């Protein structure tokens, strides 16, 4: 009987193709929107995670001030770090692969007629190691250059392109803050970070050079630390905190006036915020599913009215209330499931195109596909029930008389 009902529903739907397609349009759009949003959101989350691990997944960042204020945001009241702090960390904390003190500011980079406003970072050779960065051309700093604070620089890929175009920059001289710097190397490109910030748009110079020539002080704005593989970053973080509390003479009970950020925590924070955003977008998309359900109910009610005589005939022939209810319910569910399937196909297609345009990976999410399908079936049941019940409860005498 249920198979009969299914065939009947299928025939009823085919009987009025245009109307059936308009009926399911709401469901199609709703499901497609949910699938697209969730798939793209999943891709974006994965992209953020990948970006952060490209910063160096065992990396920790030590900054003065409380809490994490986002890129460049430190609290001015807290005392700055000095190079000594970085050296102390290197000496006293075990399990470290590299420690890179760094400071940065902005400067105009000039080469010939080309002029580019960029950021200048002063650090050591360890910076490249900590940040997981490799050289595309040239060489890194020598120990002598770092100690002496020579005017040498390594260019980020963007700066290289902006200033040199196709020319070879190695051994050329550029000007930063009216000072002449010799280009000794060029970094590999890392592209845009998930914050939308171009990671390749900077010039790296020795820390001492930066302090003397550009900043005019001996401050270190933050210290990058990378743990050896297999070493727990939680332990490294705790050790650095203990050490820095001692060095900065913070009494027991007082808050830290510095903070140590584990990149893993940042990754978790950022990926969870993309997830929340994805969930919000999906929720908005789900509203259109609801609207789609109302569309189905509307058309099913029209259909019940139109088919009143048919229902009367069926009742007269001996159909039970339950059987008429089942017939209309199955019809609504078949419609909404069909809409769900089309929506899933469209949604995945749109997500594939969108992922390509937004340059995030396309990650097929089976769970959301299954959920979307079940949800569309549920929409059919919920919004098909009222019209179906209306059909089942018709008085056969009235229904047969209906024009």
């Amino acid at each position, binding site marked *: 009987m249920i198979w009969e009902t299914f065939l009947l529903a299928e*025939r009823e739907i085919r009987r009025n193709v245009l109307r059936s397609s308009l009926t399911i349009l709401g469901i199609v759009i709703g499901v497609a929107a949910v699938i697209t949003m969730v798939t793209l959101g999943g891709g974006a989350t994965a992209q953020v995670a990948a970006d952060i691990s490209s910063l160096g997944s065992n990396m920790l960042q030590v900054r003065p001030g409380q809490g994490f204020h986002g890129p460049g945001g430190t609290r001015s009241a807290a005392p700055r770090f000095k190079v000594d702090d970085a050296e102390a960390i290197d000496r006293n904390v075990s399990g470290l692969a590299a420690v890179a003190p760094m400071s940065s500011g902005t400067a105009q980079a000039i080469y010939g007629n080309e002029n580019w406003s960029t950021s200048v970072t002063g650090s050591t050779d360890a910076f490249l190691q900590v940040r997981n960065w490799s050289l595309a051309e040239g060489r890194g700093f020598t120990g002598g250059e770092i100690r002496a604070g020579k005017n040498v620089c390594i260019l980020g890929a963007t700066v290289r392109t902006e200033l040199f175009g196709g020319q070879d920059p190695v051994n050329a001289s550029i000007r930063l803050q009216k000072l002449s710097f010799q280009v000794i190397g060029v970094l590999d490109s890392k592209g845009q970070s998930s914050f939308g910030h171009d990671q390749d748009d900077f010039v790296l110079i020795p820390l001492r050079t930066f302090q003397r020539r550009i900043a005019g002080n001996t401050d270190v704005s933050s210290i990058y630390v990378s743990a050896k593989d297999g070493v727990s970053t939680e332990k490294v973080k705790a050790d650095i905190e203990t050490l820095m509390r001692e060095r900065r003479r913070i009494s027991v009970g007082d808050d830290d006036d510095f903070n140590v950020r584990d990149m893993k925590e940042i990754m978790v924070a950022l990926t969870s915020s993309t997830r929340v955003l994805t969930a919000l977008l999906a929720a908005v998309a789900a509203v259109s599913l609801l609207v789609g359900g109302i569309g189905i109910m509307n058309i099913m009610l029209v259909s019940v009215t139109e088919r009143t005589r048919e229902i009367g005939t069926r009742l*007269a*022939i*001996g*159909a039970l209330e*339950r059987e008429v209810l089942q017939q209309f319910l199955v019809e609504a569910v078949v419609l909404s499931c069909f809409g769900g399937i089309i929506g899933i196909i469209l949604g995945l297609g749109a997500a594939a195109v969108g992922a390509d345009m937004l340059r995030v990976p396309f990650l097929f999410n089976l769970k959301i596909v299954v959920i979307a399908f079940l949800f569309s079936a549920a929409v059919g049941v919920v919004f098909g029930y009222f019209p179906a019940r209306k059909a089942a409860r018709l008085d056969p*005498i009235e229904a047969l008389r209906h024009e």
Partner: protein
Amino acid sequence: MNTQNHSKDSHHSLITINGVTRVYGQGSAAMYALRGVDFSIHTGEFVAVMGPSGSGKSTCMNILGCLDTPTDGEYLLEGVNVGKLSRDQRALLRRNYLGFVFQGFNLLNRTSALENVELPLIYRGTPIAERRIRAKEALASVGLEGWEAHTPGELSGGQQQRVAIARAIVTHPRVLLADEPTGNLDTARSREIMELLTSFNRERNITIIMVTHEAEMAAYAGRRIHFIDGVIDNGQDTERKNA
């Protein structure tokens, strides 16, 4: 009240109607469609129900068809008191014992003649192979062999009514209720339909109760029951002379 006599009656009557009234509305707005009707119908009879509109004949047909129940009095179908049954129980009675033919044919649109005839068998749960065979036989018995695949839109009015009759008799019902079956047809087509009904009545012993207002069609029946103002007009209740 001689209920004992009536219940004894029901042993050899297919249908017994005892003091049936049907009232619509309540209090001062109450409208009496039937004001106490008694009659019985035996298996194999062909009865024409006649009367002007508003006389109660349609109400009576609805009650006989188990679509409606009496406000008062009792309707026994094969000894079963239909008035005491639930909506679904009455649906099962219709499914298993009754066949319906309507004035407006009431076939499913855009559905082939064969599928239309199969419909009551679907509700009976008849397996598909048997259903096909029985529906084809029924269509053949109303002279529509070869028209199985045609939809109502492709059939003439007479042919549509034949499909409807095939649908009504495919379940081998005890009673066939026909409500103005010739009302939408011309005289020649009407006669064909009446010949068909008469043949089913005689050859298959199907009891037929037919509402009509045309004397010519009523003449095919073995007995005529006239309704007037919610009661049976006994003056015109006549037996068929050449029975």
